[in-house]
Structures are given as structure tokens and as C-alpha cells.
């Protein structure tokens, strides 16, 4: 039983990181309709940025904040310089995916070229542990969970309570109509990439803190979890991704605790495939999505 509870505790911590990454990813996809494979590489970049900042004596949480800001800018820049011009030219969905894969590989190999292929570590002490209701969590895990909750709450308020959030949701639902209603959709998409970039950067550093050691493949490996969480929640749906992150985190940790940790990725993948087969529109999906087929 204690194995189970401990696994749940780890699962929640892992789920928080996954949710952080998955929400950014899914919001970006939902609003700009770009399947951005560069996202993983940007997470790796954030982790290395954090590593570099730690190296010059910046505190770890400050490094996280700086990395989040830096990646937010990089993400918005990527959209402005690469993705938006492509879409203006009418490049198809898969064409844009290929470009993001290419951009991801450029970033990844730039990182290798500069930082080298070896694994690195933040070398942080895990800090004191906190026990509550059988759960054992380190303070840094607790901070990450708190950070995720705060980020999710902020995103929720942004999307539901502000004019900007309404414009973002309108752009997501129908960019053409949104544009003709006077919403500057290009600006909205810029903002979306900025926000998702910040979440991506934060998730990258948080992931580096929780995994202890990492190398340049950090982002691509994490992709499985991120996509599993996003699909679980119904891609493009931020609340779904929050829930999905938690389910994937707890599910894989518990499964790994009872079998072999080596297959943790496989469980995440199994969950993903299962989901695609039985409920491809996600846990929270409403019937409305299928209405899109009506127009045919």
C-alpha cells in the first residue's frame, strides 16, 4: 500500500510537470492550429538555459523564471519569423509540422554543438522532504506542484475573465470569423505563442529539476508524456490537458512502481493509443466536435 501511495505522490509531482508542458502545447495547438514539434527542443533549451544560469550562480527558481521568459520570447519569435509567414503562404498542415521538426532538430543540434552530448545535472539538493497523508514529497516537488497550480489558475482566469482570453477562444473556434469581427488574430496568436512558450520554458526547467540528470534528448523523450496528456484531455483543450497530465503522471508512476521503470514510456504510449482508439476526442470531449463534419 505504501508503495502505491508513494507512487501516487511521485505521480502527482510528475503530473504537475507534464501538465505544465502539456497545457502550453495544447493551448498553442488549439489556438494557432500548429502541431509544434519544436516545443520539445525549446523545453530542452530551457533546461540548458537553466543549467547555464545555475553555473553563473543564479538561484534555481530565478533561473526557472528567466528561462520561462527567454523561451516565451523564443517561441513568439519562432512563430513570427517562421510559422506565421509559412501559413500566410498557405503551406499545409503537414508542411508546417515538418518545418517545426526541422527547427527542433536545428535547436537540438545547436545545443549539442555548444553544450556537448554528455548528461548534465543541476546538482540541486533534493531539500527536506514533506510527509502528509502517506505522501512523501520534496520541497522542490511541492514548489513545482504549487507553480503548476498557480499557472493553471492564471490561465483559467485569462481565458474566461479577460477580453484577451475571449479573443483567444474566438480565434481558436474560428480564426476567419474572429478576424472579420475585428480581432487581430495574428496578434492573438503571437500572444498565445508567448504564453505557451513561457509554460514550455517553465516546464523545461521543472523537468530538469525533477529528472536530476538530463541530456539533449530531454525534450523528445518527454514528448510522449506531453502528447499523451494532451490527447487524453482532448487536444486543444487546456483543462483536458491539466487532467491528462495528472492521469498520465500518476498512471505511469504507479505502473512503473509495480513493474519496471524502464517501461514507463511504454505505459504512457499505451495510454495514448488506448485513448485514441476508444475516445479520440479526449476525456472531456463534447459531441460538438463532430459537428465539423457537417459542412462536408
Amino acid at each position, binding site marked *: 500500500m505504501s508503495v502505491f501511495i508513494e507512487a501516487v505522490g511521485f505521480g502527482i509531482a510528475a503530473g504537475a510537470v507534464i501538465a505544465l508542458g502539456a497545457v502550453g502545447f495544447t493551448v498553442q*495547438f488549439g489556438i494557432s492550429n500548429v*502541431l509544434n*514539434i519544436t516545443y520539445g527542443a525549446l523545453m530542452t533549451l530551457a533546461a540548458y538555459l537553466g543549467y547555464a544560469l545555475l553555473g553563473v550562480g543564479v538561484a534555481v527558481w530565478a533561473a526557472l523564471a528567466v528561462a520561462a521568459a527567454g523561451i516565451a520570447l523564443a517561441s513568439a519569435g519562432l512563430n513570427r519569423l*517562421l510559422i506565421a*509567414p*509559412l501559413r500566410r*503562404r498557405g*503551406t499545409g*498542415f*503537414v*508542411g508546417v*509540422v*515538418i*518545418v517545426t*521538426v*526541422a*527547427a527542433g*532538430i*536545428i535547436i*537540438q*543540434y*545547436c545545443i*549539442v*554543438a555548444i553544450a*556537448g*552530448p554528455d548528461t548534465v545535472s543541476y546538482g540541486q539538493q533534493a531539500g527536506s522532504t514533506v510527509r502528509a497523508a502517506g505522501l512523501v514529497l520534496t520541497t522542490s516537488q511541492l514548489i513545482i506542484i504549487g507553480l503548476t497550480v498557480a499557472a493553471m489558475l492564471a490561465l483559467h482566469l485569462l481565458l474566461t475573465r479577460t477580453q484577451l482570453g475571449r479573443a483567444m477562444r474566438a480565434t481558436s473556434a474560428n480564426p476567419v470569423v474572429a478576424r472579420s469581427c475585428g480581432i487581430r488574430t495574428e496578434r492573438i496568436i503571437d500572444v498565445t505563442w508567448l504564453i505557451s512558450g513561457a509554460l514550455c520554458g517553465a516546464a523545461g526547467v521543472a523537468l530538469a529539476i525533477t529528472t536530476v540528470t538530463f541530456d539533449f534528448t530531454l525534450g*523528445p*523523450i518527454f*514528448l*510522449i508524456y506531453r*502528447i*499523451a496528456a494532451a*490527447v487524453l484531455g482532448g*487536444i486543444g483543450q487546456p483543462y483536458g490537458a491539466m487532467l491528462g497530465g495528472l492521469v498520465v503522471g500518476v498512471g505511469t508512476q504507479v505502473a512503473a512502481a509495480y513493474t519496471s521503470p*524502464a*517501461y514507463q*514510456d*511504454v505505459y504512457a*504510449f499505451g495510454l*495514448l*493509443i488506448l485513448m*485514441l*482508439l476508444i475516445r*479520440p476526442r479526449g476525456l472531456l470531449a*463534447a*459531441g*460538438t466536435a*463532430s*459537428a465539423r*463534419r*457537417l*459542412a*462536408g
Partner: protein
Amino acid sequence: MLVYLGTDLLAAWGLNLEFGVAGVANFAYIVLVAAGAYLYAVFTLGPPAAMGGFQQYIIGARLPVAVAVALAALICGGLGCLIGVTGLKRLRADYQAMVMLVISILATTIIGADTALFNGNAGLSLIPSPLASVDPAHRGWYYVAVVGAVCAAGYLVLCRFTTGPFGRVLRAVREDEDAAIAVGKNVVGLRLAVQAVGGVYAGLSGALLAGFIGGWSPSAWEYVETLALLTAIIVGGLGNDAGVLLGVVIVPVLILQGVQFLPQIKSAPQLAGDLGWIILGLLTIAFVFARPQGLIPERRPRLGVPGVPADAGAPPARLPGGAESDVPAQAGGPVQAERPVQAERPAQAVEPAQPGGPAQAGGAAQPGGPAQAGGAARPGGPAQAGGAAPAGTLAPAVGTGPAGLAPIIAGRPPILSVDGLVRRYGGVRAVDGASFTAVAGGITGLIGPNGAGKSTVLGLVSGFVRPDAGRITFDGRDVAALPAHRRARLGIVRTFQLPREFRALTTIENLLVAAPGQRGESAAGVAAGRWLWRRDEDELAEAARGLLRLFGMAEAADERAGRLSGGQKRMLEVMRALMAGPRLLLLDEPMAGLAPALAERLEAACRQLAGAGMSILLVEHELGVVERLCETVVVMAQGKLISTGRMAELRTRKEVQDAYVVG
């Protein structure tokens, strides 16, 4: 390096078939190449213990090399199919792309973690070379010869797949999946076939490479390698096998291998490799930006109408054997030019209100009868009957209850009957218990205000929308459970409200794709060779040309469909449906946005088709057209049937007026 070129080429060709031709973005392709290499290794290696026991793997069959290569290729074909199964649920392209990527990354992880099966990250070594008997000093060149021979054979086989009817239908699927389904193409089956063939090429490539290197390491097959192949295809030319050859020379060979010859930096020996990948990424982006069609673009076949200039913007068309037509764009113009007797009539004679009068278009638009399309055989009797539709044969239904709505037409059984159809979207009942019939050999109108559920009914009947309840009987057979493409093959063929042409295909290719039962359209048929389908193809092309003349679009035959005008695309939509051999044609607002001249031509064609015995279910907002064409008209409002009868009577009925006024 030539061996690398050859094996990369095989892999790139396979991927080009999947991605370039069929549009399946298989990001997991490299996994298949890796599997081919692994399978070759374990088939040729002896049992693990006998090989010194320092590496673990399965099978260890010590098979002859040729058998091992063939087996590896075949199994990879199967694996390709397995990956293709992810598309079975008709996942959206975004989901598919994600699943493929995840499979690819996951495969590396599993292989690295599983030592019993794959010997972990260490990989396998001491794999027997296929040319063990040859003097090692010359082995390299022999190997080049072997790989070259395989490539040449691979190219010849591949050409059969990418050109001809099979390649054409794949391109159609790539351009618009739903439109391909609407003309009866089994999209899932085609994708699986393509992924099987692609898998065979991947397996072949992997096996040959493993045999050459003598080792197998999981790190050589990371997902980024798929990008290398994709880049090669994009640079060379999507869908063009010769272009891919060029692309492979440039990308994997010149760049990824070439960087190894750069001056090495001692402190960071891997830097050159990194640089290669960075260049590759930049190249991909540059090409998608500046030249998405690649260095050597996909070819555009010329099958157009002889004697007619193929390019748009060419001078007015002159049709073969006919009088010169001064106004080819005008309704009836070119068509009448074919029959000099009729050409004497002024063009305005094509007056739609005049029932049975103009006897437009010399040719029978009878689908499936290619020989008639030339313009000679005109179905005399029925053509006129369709237009005239004497009121005496029609016993208009009375009453508005569902039971009373079925029109009873003397001597003509319904070809379609729909009973209690329900379709909900969330809480909205788009179609709410609709029941009606469509007569055989007549035009049934389906009208109603916007949002009445007309298009949904068409979707339900054609199989694009699944009903929540209700029965759909076509020609005495319950078709409600059949997938859309099967219904299309039975003869229920739909058009789309917004034209959905296969953009990159030429106009005439759009028509050829739609023809049912082509022998050259299956993977097996096309592999057999050209002799099997050549005659089919010629006949179909003749039929398609006839149809193009009939609709006055002969001059646009070789134009890419994406470049047609809006009206031409609509015409194409109808022509394509006709090529699919419909028995019940479902037209979804065919007149919307059509210039009057074109609308008249289309109306005339509809009348003639019905006269020739075709059944048509017409959804249309233009009530004048409905009144002139349809014997029976079904009125829908808010998902329900509210009335049925002849248009003239319907106009006087209160419930119909209310529905249109109130909405």
C-alpha cells in the same frame, strides 16, 4: 558511400510513395528501416550461444542471405501495415502525425531498454555479409553492384506504383480524402496497401545496409533520420521518383556524409555531424519556404482532348469535327457545335423553362458507357420524357404525416427510402425523424430553409454522417451500416456543397480517378503491369473527354483542378460524380454561385441524366430550378419533414410558407 546512396534511395522511395504520393506523413518510417536491418541480422546470425554468447537476440536462424533479405522486407511490409492501422479510425492528420512521432521515439527507447530482444543500446555485431565468398578486397564494389541492381529493380517496380491509376488514386486521397471516399475509393485500404509497400522498401533498405556494415545499432535509427529522408524528398520533389534520387544525392549523401570530410576539430569530434543536421534542418525550412514542390516537381500528365489547346488562357476552343464555336464559354455553345444540325439554333434556345425542348448536348451523359460519350448516341425517348414529366404519371401525395409523405408514383419503385432518420449534434437534432423516398429514374428535390438538415440528410444517405437512428434502404438493400465508399460503389454518389476538387490533379485526372472498378487501381493490379489496365485507361479517358466536351470544359482538361474557376470546379464536381457511375446522384446545392449560363447547362444535364434513367436527389435553394426539374419535392424544416409534393402545390401550402418565412 555508393552503398549508402543506394540504401537511402530505397528508403526514400518507399517514404516518397507514402508521403509524397499518398500524403501519409509517416514520421515512424525509420523504425521500419531499423526493423529491416534488425531482422536481417537475426535471420542470418547463428543462435546466440553458438556465436559466443556475448550478445542476446532472438531467432538466430542462420538463413541464406537472399532469404533473410526477402523475409526482412516482407515482415517490414507487415509492420508498415500495422503502423498504418493507426489510420484505420480515420484519425485527423494531426493525431496521426503525433502518433507516428511517438512510435518513432518510443521504438528507440524500447530497443535501448530491452536487452533480451535487442541487446539494448549495444546493438548487434558480426552480422554476416551477403558476399562472404567474395574476396574482401573487392567486396565493396560487388556490394555496390548488388545494391545498384536492387535499386534499379526497385525503381522500375516503384514507377508502376506511382504512375498509372494506382498512383493517381493515391494522389487523389492525398488531396482530399472525403472526396475520394465520395467516389467510392477505399481510403483505408489504399493507405494500408501503400504503407505495406513502403514498409517493404524500408525493410529492403535496412537489410542491405545491415549486411554492408555488419552491425546494427539502435542509435543509427533515431527519429531524426526520418527527417533526413523527408528532406531528401522535399528537396528532390514530392511525389517524383527521379527527383527523390537527386534529393538523396544532395541530402543524406552530400550533406550528412559530406560533413565528415570537413576538417575535424579535435576537441569536439562530433561537431561535424551536428553541423550536418543543422544544415539539413535549414535546408528543409528553406525548401518548404521557397520551393515546396522541390527541384523536380511532380509531373502533370497530358491526357487532354485532342485538338484542343491544353492551357488555360488559350484562344477559344475549337472542337473536333464540328462547326466553329464563337462563344465556347456560353451554355450549349461547344456542345451544339458537335451537332451541326442543332448548332443552327441560337444559343438562347437552351431555355431551361422549356421542358424537353432544347435536347441539349448531343452526347449521352450516360456514365459507364464510355463509347457513347463521344457524342454520337443520343438516347432518344427517355431524354424527352425526363424533361416533360407529364403530370398524369404522378400521383402527388397528400397529407403531412410521415406515412403519407411517401410519394406514390405509378409503376416506378423508389430507389431510395429513408425511414425515421435521426442525427444529433450535441443537443441539436439536425435531422429528427426524417422519412421520404426518392423515385428511380427521376429527380427528387430536397428543399428547406438554412439549417433544416438537408445537407445532413445527404451526408447520412451517402454515409459521411452516421445516423443515430433510422433506416436507409437503397434499391431494396439496407445500407445504413455500410461505410461511405461502399455505398458509393453501390451507386450512391454525392457531390459537395463547396467543390472539393483534387487540386494537384488535372481536370481529366479528377474524372479518371472517379471511375469504379479500375483494374490498375489495386496494388496487385498495378504491380502486374501496364498491359492489364492500358485498355481500360484508354476507354476511360475517352469517356472523360466526352464528358468534358459535354460540359464545355474540354479546353481545361490538362489544367490542374486547383486552378479552375469556381464555376468550373462545380462542373467538375458533378462530372466527377458522374464518372463514378452513380445510380442515385446526390447533388448538394449544385447551382449555388454558378453563373446563369453554367447553371443552365447544368440544369440541362440533370434533365438529360434523369431522362436516361438516373435517379437524382437534389438539394437546392434555387426554387425555380427545383420547380422545373423535380417531379417530387420534399420540404424540410428544423430537421423534420414538413411537406412533400410538386413544387407548384408546395408554394401554396401554409406550412411550407411558414417554414420559409419564419425559418
